[in-house]
């Protein structure tokens, strides 16, 4: 049971990673002059949309979390709306935090906001898919011994990895190498993306290696 689930997790995560790679490569065939560095804004949009849709599809197909007890149509709609609002709020929150960390306030607002959207897709959207619009559950997952399934462990790892990646991505910005990827926010978004992909790959492996120690509380 556990092994099978880990395998499913691995497959899902690999799909996600693959989608990111494709998001960087495929649009070049359709859009003229598309490149990750050159047309960074487009790539940011494409990448967030890809990851978001894939995550939602995977969530619908795999159903890692148990479905809510009440499932009337109105309830579903309200849930969906709530999710949208939460996602938007998390974008705003990320934007505010990024600006407080030293991003320019007025110049390149679009870049900053799209970066915030990217970060939200890597973190908040996953939470929304897995846990629903339930802040308390989020709080529970992001604390020690809080994860209750391998999906939640994976969520922990990927979110932390993407945020760490974004944090480390800020480091090359002041260097005087004059490379095109040192421009705000390219290095940060690349860092977040690489962090996310690393998290996707690390999570199943880590869970596999620690499967003896990981004893999830039953619900």
């Amino acid at each position, binding site marked *: 049971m556990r092994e099978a689930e880990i395998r499913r997790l691995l497959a899902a995560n690999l799909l996600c990673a693959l989608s990111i790679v494709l998001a960087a490569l495929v649009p070049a065939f359709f859009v003229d002059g598309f490149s990750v560095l050159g047309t960074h804004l487009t790539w940011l949009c494409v990448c967030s949309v890809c990851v978001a849709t894939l995550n939602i599809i995977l969530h619908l197909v795999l159903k890692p979390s148990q479905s809510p007890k009440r499932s009337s149509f109105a309830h579903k709609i309200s849930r969906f709306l709530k999710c949208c609002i939460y996602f938007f709020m998390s974008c705003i929150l990320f934007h505010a935090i990024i*600006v*407080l*960390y*030293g991003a320019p306030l007025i110049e390149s607002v679009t870049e900053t906001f799209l970066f915030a959207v990217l970060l939200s897709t890597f973190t908040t959207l996953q939470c929304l898919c897995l846990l629903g619009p339930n802040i308390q559950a989020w709080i529970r997952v992001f*604390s*020690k011994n*809080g994860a209750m399934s391998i999906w939640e462990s994976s969520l922990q790892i990927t979110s932390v990895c993407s945020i760490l990646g974004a944090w480390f991505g800020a480091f090359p910005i*002041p260097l*005087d190498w004059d490379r095109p990827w040192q421009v705000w926010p390219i290095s940060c978004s690349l860092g977040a993306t690489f962090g996310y992909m690393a998290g996707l790959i690390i999570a199943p492996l880590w869970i596999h290696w620690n499967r003896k120690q990981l004893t999830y509380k039953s*619900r």
Partner: protein
Amino acid sequence: GRRVVFMGDDTWEGLFPKKFFRSYFFPSFNVKDLHTVDDGILQHLYPTVDSGEWDVLIAHFLGVDHCGHKHGPDHPEMAKKLTQMNEMLRSLVDHLGNDTLLLVAGDHGMTETGDHGGDSEKEVNAALFVYSRTPLFGSGPPEEPETIPQVNLVPTMALLLGVPIPYSNIGEVMAELFSGDGDAVSAALQQLSVYHINAKQVDRFLQSYSLVAQDLPAEQLQHLRELFSSAVEEHTQLLAQVQGTTGLPRELESRLGSLIGRFQRYLREARAVCTQSWARFHPLRMAGGCILIASSCLLCYTVSELAASSHSFCRSCLLYPLPWVLVGALLGLAHVFTQKGLDLLLVSSWAAAASQLGFFWHWWGRHPKRARLAGSQPPLASGGLRQRLRAWLGLAFPMGILLFRCGAMFSDSFVVAEARVAPFLLASLVMLLVGKLHWDGRLTVPESPKQQLLGFSSYRREIWYLLCLVAMLLVCVRLSSFFHQCREEIPQCRPSVFLSPLASLRNTRAKNLFYLLCVALLAGLVYAVQSWLRHYGNLNSSDPLVLFVRWGFPLVVLCIACYWAVASSADDSLGKLQELVQVAVVVFPRAVYGLASVGLLLLLCNPLTVFAKDTRESAGSIVTPYLGVPSSEVDFLHVIPQIYKRMQESQRSRLERGSCRATVAAYGLGSVYSAALVIALTLLGFLLMLLHSERLSFAFLLLFVEAFVLLHIHTCARGLAGDAEPFSVPWYAVISWLLAASQFFYSTGHQPIFPAIHWNAAFVGFHLDHSTNLLPAVLVGANTFASHILFAVGCPLLLLWPFVCEMSNSQRKKPKKESREELQEVEERMMEMRLRESPEKFSTALLRLGLKYLFVLGAQLLACVCAAMILRRHLMVWKVFAPKFLFESLGFVVSSICLLLGISLVMRVDCAVSTWFSQLRLR
């Protein structure tokens, strides 16, 4: 008087402004731009050459250098560039007249990657090409031309142009260019005269140089001197002979040759001596210094950890090395006597090294004993190990941030961008702290079984408080970035508008608005401090200090406001009042200095801000300090009814309890220590604000707010983490405190470069006349290291603040009603008096805090020193690393002195409290 025409790199404009007869400057900053400068020069070169309106024409082509940086030496672009240069030379040669000398020289070579600035063979060697239409060399050109030092160009050019050799030249003329067109003898004579001039100039320079500076070794100077005088003597003899007789040309020629050789030898040796003593690094001393700093850091760390375990052991450890200092000093003296000359630096470093060795030896000697002791109880040891491991993990995150900070010192880009790096790291540290608290589940309410069943958990109420504080801190950090000064390395940066003084504002309305805002800010600061003190009951007594806080602070603010008004008013508008203004500009700052020093003196004499009401009747009763806020808005004037009430109460309590228990109500005893520190900090803040330009007081407001918020975050986090050890300050608090200090170094408009120093500060209160250098140095230093001073003096607050805030928490639970407190409640309100309960622990805690602070400071300094040492041949060493090192080490000295002052202030308060208690007992 010569006409110098320049074309090329616009850096020259900055170096020699308005020195050129005519100039064509082209922007050179963009390394990627290979062609602008070169094409510009080519456009103007030939017409200028042909017009003949010049004596010296300098054409500085930059394309090859840029191309090397961008593409490297083996790139097709480079080939193109070099071909272009070849073409240029070829056609230039055709344009030259007969009396023109063409010198083509490179100022440096390049490495395999096309960069330069190091000292490798490939970088320091470049070609020199000399061309003239008239034959230069008497004989054919030499087969294998010798290498010529770059400094030789200066005297050669000067003499060829017929101008005196520059005073500080140590180069040697290139004799081949002076051979003229006559026979060998006349050529040799000409060369000889050139050498003579050159040697005389160098001798004169060395003479006057050795008078002011002692860094050239004496015996070598002496040797040079002899060489020179003998050569000159022979020169005069020879000249006389030549004029007298036309002896055998062959003999004369050989004598001339030998004399030229002697002059050459003299010049070369002089240059060798100079280069040796000027561009000299002492790798041994540098390494020694680094090791000393590193071991001091280690010492700070071990002692701060050691002090926690056992007090007496620590004391012996600290006292033990003292004799070793003597031994080290003797050793140093012995070392010095083997060489000559007393070097105080060497002696003191030997002493320091010996004492540290002594300490470590002693510590190591005791250490195994402890280990064995622990080994006798195996279960405890293993538990200790696990605990230690956990402690190490806990240390990892603040230390990781510190590591990043230190690592950033090794990259010139990061040093340049440090103004942004420090706030970034500070924000990260605080966010990590919150994240860690959350991860450990400290923020959530302990789950009840029912909640556990649902898998939910909810936050404590304090979390909102903490989050608000963190948000405030982040906002402060972000806002403080609006006050940055610029470095020239970041060309697109614009210095903050707040840096310029108000007087430079043209717009009168804006000026008035800013002025009013600044004054309002000062008043607000005073009000905030006073209300803080009132809240903790420190404003009730009638001691001179309290009176000073009540009336002196507004007076200081008034003086500062007047000074700003006078200083920022337009100069010419006042007309007749000019003289009055001159006086006022001097008088007001002096008044502030005077008032502030009076305040600090008062603080030292009587640092107690306690108001005691003695309601005892019999001696020998138990003292129960009454702490905290007066029950209602007790003001000084309303004290008498209070006393009456209290007397009644104590009477009643006596009757009720039937004991002889009475009370002494002491307002503000719970925050004596912090009150003294806050008063000192405010006074210092006023002084430092006075030294900065008016609008930087916003930055100071941010500084105070941020420090306040940091203290609260620290207190709050500590309350949430449920620390068992109230007497130790965690590392993250110390590191965040220091990060804030360096952040505000930049946010008060400073940069670690010399052009960014605010020299104006030296003339606040002194009108253009200083008798000594000491006072302006102090003023400018205080201006530069303002944030270091404030944060270092305020450092003990990190220890005291949690105790101060204890009360407000407990008070929220039980509003007022404090007349009759149970013993337990009194316990709860002990605040800083808890510190007095265990004086041993208190002093240890202060020591540990100071050592931790010093450790973090020392680690930063060590990183800086190591960076400057390792990268001493780096291209940016004189621009970035060396100034950074100087500023950092000065900041270290200032910080450590101020830290000592802050801690000694706390000790002084402690003494005063002790005497106060003993007086109470006596009464």
